[in-house]
Structure formats: C-alpha cells, structure tokens
C-alpha cells in the first residue's frame, strides 16, 4: 500500500523578498561603475552606494524571518541564509570602502581662493626642473601664455 504524497499546502507562497533582495544586490554591485562616470552630483554617490547595499540586507532579514516564523508558507530557508550572508558581507565591505575613501586629511590649511599659490620647482617626466612661475608664463600649444594653470595633486601609485 503506497502512501499518497501529501498535497502541497495551498497557502504555499514563494518568498518574493528574496528575489527582490537578490536583484538589488546586483544593482548595488553595478552602481560602483558610476564612480567612473563623471556625472553631476557625484558627491552623493558614496551614500547612494551605501543605501543600495543596506536595502537588500534589510529585505533578506525580513525574508529570513518569514521562513523561520512560517516555514509551512514560505520556502527558501537555505537560500535566505546564503543571501543574508552574502548581503551582510557586501554591506560590511561597502561600509569599509566608505570609511577608507573618506579617511583623508582635511585641506583647510591648503591655499584657498584669493591666496597666492606657493611657487615651487619639481622635475618633469624627463627629469628637467620645472618652476610654477614658468608654467604660468610660458606659451601653451596655442602659442599664447595660459589663462590659468590647473594644478592637480593626485595620490599616485597608479
């Protein structure tokens, strides 16, 4: 005598929160590419990035609670734990990235608008000494002296 397979619980529902969270994780990871696009309002990107990594974590935790509280209705407990782990690690990483990228000395002592830029002499890529006062006066490729010199200090080690 074979035991009949139990009919599936008619209340069984898929855990949509997990799918949404999974999609948001992909969006959050892809949003990092925006840092390479020089769009207006870029200073908001680090915070947008953080929120995009926090949202799926919240959704996954909600989804996980459902599978624990109502296991007969919501499936996907293993998937919930895996997603919770993944989004937890990614969120922690985005917090760390925010901390590292903002952990730079302030520039309140640096020359400000209206002040004189200190003169200096440094070697160029050919090893030739170059002075700021020459950069300000020597003609550029259009044959005229520059209207302005754009000094770009960067971190190096590229």
């Amino acid at each position, binding site marked *: 005598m074979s035991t009949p397979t139990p009919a599936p619980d008619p209340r069984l529902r898929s855990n949509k929160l997990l799918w949404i969270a999974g999609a948001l994780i992909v969006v959050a990871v892809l949003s990092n590419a925006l840092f390479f696009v*020089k769009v207006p309002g870029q200073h908001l990107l*680090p915070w947008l990035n953080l929120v995009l990594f926090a949202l799926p974590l919240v959704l996954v935790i909600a989804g996980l609670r459902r599978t624990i509280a109502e296991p007969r209705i919501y499936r996907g407990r293993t998937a919930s734990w895996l997603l919770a782990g993944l989004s937890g690690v990614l969120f922690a990483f985005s917090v760390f990235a925010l901390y590292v990228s903002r952990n730079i000395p302030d520039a309140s002592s640096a020359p400000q608008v209206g002040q004189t830029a200190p003169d200096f002499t440094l070697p160029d890529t050919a090893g030739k000494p170059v002075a700021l006062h020459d950069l300000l006066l020597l003609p550029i490729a259009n044959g005229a002296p520059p209207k*302005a010199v754009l000094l770009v200090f*960067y971190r190096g080690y590229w």
Partner: protein
Amino acid sequence: MPEFQAAGVRPVAISVDSTQTSANLRRDAGYSFTFLSDPATEVIRRYHLLHPAGGPDKHDIARPAEFLVDPHGVVRWVNFTEDIRVRARAGEMLAAAQKIQ
C-alpha cells in the same frame, strides 16, 4: 584634453610618483600635459596636502586637490574632495577657467 587647451588652461599633475613612474603613466594614458614628481613630498607639504601613510606600505602621499592658478599666481578655484572615489569633473574646471579674464 583639447578642451583645456582651447580654454587656455595648462594642466599640471603632481604626485609622489618617481619621474619614471609618471613617464610610464603619461605614455600609457596618452596624456601630453606636464607631470611633476615630488617623492620627498616637499611641495605637497608646502601646499598642506600631505596624507601621512596614505599610500601602499604606509608611504606618505598627497590627498587629492585641484587648483586653478591665474597668471599672477593667485588661486581662482579649488576643489578638495572628501571622498577619494569622487573627483572634480572637467566641466567644473573649464567653467571656472572661463571666469578668469
């Protein structure tokens, strides 16, 4: 960079990289403007832009900063980012350069 030349702006990049490292970067990136090397962070300190131990192996480097300096040596525009992932856009610098006469 032709936009900068058209606006009469001479870009100059400064970092702690050696002249050889800067030469490689300049060649590989196809840049034609001037790259200056300040491995001793002498000028970076003079501009109060030192980021102590900010580089790999705890090397001192420059915190990112951009200045537009007019022919009299006066700073006309600055940008000090608070997040190294967020940098000044060329459009902002060109707009600032247009205002210098």
